[in-house]
């Protein structure tokens, strides 16, 4: 495998990073909305987000990407493949992050909400100033764990036909007939992205466990 | 004083200059003692004195670093065969019962005879039912440990150990985790066992039990044996200051 092929992989890697970043950032916003709706007192919002989470956690990411990709085309949106994939990843991430954050919002002791209410803080302030900062801390290891899952999940964009790292690897491998070398390198590149995050997440989890003991 | 292993034909356990460390901490100092067949020993001493460690060395739950331990003539080396042989002859009862929560009372008692001794299911069940009868808990055989009181659990644990037909029973503070009203039923079971001639080493603070059952009381402090005597002498005429202080604390509370 020569220099040109490797550069081609790096271009794919760039798109993997872009997809992951867009999916994660938009997913965080969506996930926050889902988590707030899921923990709200409004029954309709509660039920709707529960169903949303159930559907996205009960179906394969690949199918979600397919449905979004062809569904958007169907209603007449002429958009690039990468945007369709980014939208799919965002919807996926919103569901998973929403569920993670619902759990951590509920893990904040009830007394915190009561104390905030007693201080006559309104919902927005109660959430922003009291509950969410604590919930965020609790959720950090799981959130990072999901980010790793999302980075790995972007590889499925290759099946939809978008050239990110895995598809770049596939193309190179078909050209030079060295699939093992190519996929080993592709795997290594993913590993280099994910492993530091995994280690960081485990570190946070240990620190958190130590501080609550 | 030293004991050679074949000095007395009826010697069941000998410890010869046994030492044990946890890292740099010396948990047992030069322990030498022997236990005759059928003898009942009560080991007592303040917490951290090494009494639990000592009996846990006898069935190799804790490895010792120096000296020799023999049980029924078998030298407890560090090789697996001797360890297995000794564990089959030595029963142990723990402070926290350690019954297996996923097995019924009967299954708790049948497991080791079937798996370690190779008994058939029928034979293991016969034996288990007999011994549950003996600790007066036969009617609970189908229950799970979590459904029993502490005292009942500890009696099951005694039956479970007896199912291996051990020659020696070790008791590691068997009544310390029990509510006061349940201590008696467990002690009565142990007294029954003693009357049947079992060789026993009990780590316990139940001095009434010691008076009634023990042939010898051994007092330990800081990992060493301070003094040992028959109970009558031990309680009425302790020789060491350390022992007197300990007895004063434990008897006058």
């Amino acid at each position, binding site marked *: 495998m020569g220099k040109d092929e490797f550069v081609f992989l790096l271009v794919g890697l760039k798109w993997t990073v872009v997809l992951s970043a867009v999916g994660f950032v938009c997913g965080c916003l969506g996930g926050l909305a889902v988590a707030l709706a899921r923990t709200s007192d409004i029954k309709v919002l509660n039920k709707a987000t529960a169903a949303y989470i159930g559907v996205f956690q009960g179906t*394969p990411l690949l199918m979600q990407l397919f449905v979004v990709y062809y569904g958007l085309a169907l209603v007449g949106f002429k958009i690039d493949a990468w945007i369709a994939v980014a939208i799919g990843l965002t919807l996926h991430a919103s569901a998973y992050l929403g569920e993670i954050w619902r759990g951590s919002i509920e893990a904040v002791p009830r007394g915190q909400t009561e104390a905030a209410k007693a201080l006559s803080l309104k919902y927005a302030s109660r959430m922003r100033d009291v509950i969410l900062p604590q919930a965020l801390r609790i959720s950090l290891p799981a959130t990072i764990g999901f980010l790793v899952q999302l980075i790995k999940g972007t590889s499925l964009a290759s099946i939809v036909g978008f050239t990110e790292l895995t598809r770049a690897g596939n193309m190179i491998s078909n050209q030079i007939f060295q699939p093992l070398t190519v996929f080993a390198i592709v795997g290594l590149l*993913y590993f280099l992205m994910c492993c530091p995050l995994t280690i960081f997440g485990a570190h946070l989890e240990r620190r958190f466990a130590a501080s609550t003991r | 004083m030293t004991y050679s292993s074949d000095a007395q034909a009826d010697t069941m356990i000998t410890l010869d200059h046994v030492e044990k460390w946890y890292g740099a901490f010396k948990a047992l100092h030069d322990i030498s003692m022997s236990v005759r067949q059928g003898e009942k020993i009560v080991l007592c001493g303040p917490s951290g004195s090494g009494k639990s460690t000592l009996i846990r060395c006898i069935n190799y739950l804790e490895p010792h670093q120096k000296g020799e331990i023999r049980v029924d003539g078998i030298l407890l080396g560090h090789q697996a065969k001797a360890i297995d042989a000794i564990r089959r002859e030595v029963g142990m009862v723990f402070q926290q019962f350690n019954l297996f929560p996923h097995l019924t009372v009967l299954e708790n008692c049948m497991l080791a005879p079937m798996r370690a001794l190779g008994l058939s299911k029928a034979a293991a069940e016969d034996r288990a039912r007999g011994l549950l009868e003996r600790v007066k808990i036969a009617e609970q055989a189908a229950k799970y440990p979590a459904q029993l009181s502490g005292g009942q659990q500890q009696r099951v644990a005694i039956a479970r150990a007896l199912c291996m037909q051990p020659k020696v029973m070790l008791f590691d503070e068997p009544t310390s985790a029990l509510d006061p009203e349940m201590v008696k039923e467990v002690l009565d079971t142990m007294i029954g066992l003693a009357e049947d001639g079992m060789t026993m080493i009990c780590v316990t603070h139940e001095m009434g039990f010691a008076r009634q059952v023990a042939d010898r009381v051994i007092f330990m402090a800081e990992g060493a044996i301070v003094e040992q005597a028959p109970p009558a002498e031990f309680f009425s005429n302790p020789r060491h200051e350390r022992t007197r202080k300990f007895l004063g604390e434990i008897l006058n509370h």
Partner: protein
Amino acid sequence: MNYQLDFTPVIDGLPNLLLGCLGTFLLAVCGMLLAIVIGIGGVILRTSKIKAARWAMIGFVELIRNTPFLVQIFFLYFALPLAGLRLDPTPTAIIALGINGGAYAIEIIRGGVQSISKGQIEAGLALGLHRAQVFRFIVLKPALRAIFPSLTSQFVLLTLSTSIASAISAYELTSVSQRIESESFRSFEVYFTVTAFYLVISWLMMRLFGLFSSRYFAYPVK
């Protein structure tokens, strides 16, 4: 929008899709069984006294957890023949699923084993059982009970990732649907229906796990 939804190809392909569901189910179950075997074996190595075995397992777990399943399955697809194993795509997919799920299972099971108190193990040893027997008869079931919720969600994820096995055209629901899609070009209709099928499959999986758990772990705890 002048596109008319047309589910006729989906309805015509229903028998094939249902067979595909069965394929997915079998793939998932075989993958899980292999994952459990790898998980238990891996935990024994991961907690053994041999340092090399421990490090090998740490490396294996991190390697698998930090790379995409799609890349793993491609790698295996090309590597197995070189190792002298010429297998069809479906068994290859099962091995890939087993290895992937096994790595996660190692970490989960290890957590479960560590949740068992030391006294339980000592009681088993004091009764004359060997280490392997203590693990098999005393540690395993309570440990499984402790980890069952996380094992369940991991195995639902494994079930969902069987769809990725379509990339090497293993026989399962996604590859069947791709065939119907490529013949009919009714992409949205096909994938939308198949997504609903997956929802049913993962719901069934969870029910099965719940049923197993209420039977097998029926013993009371404090």
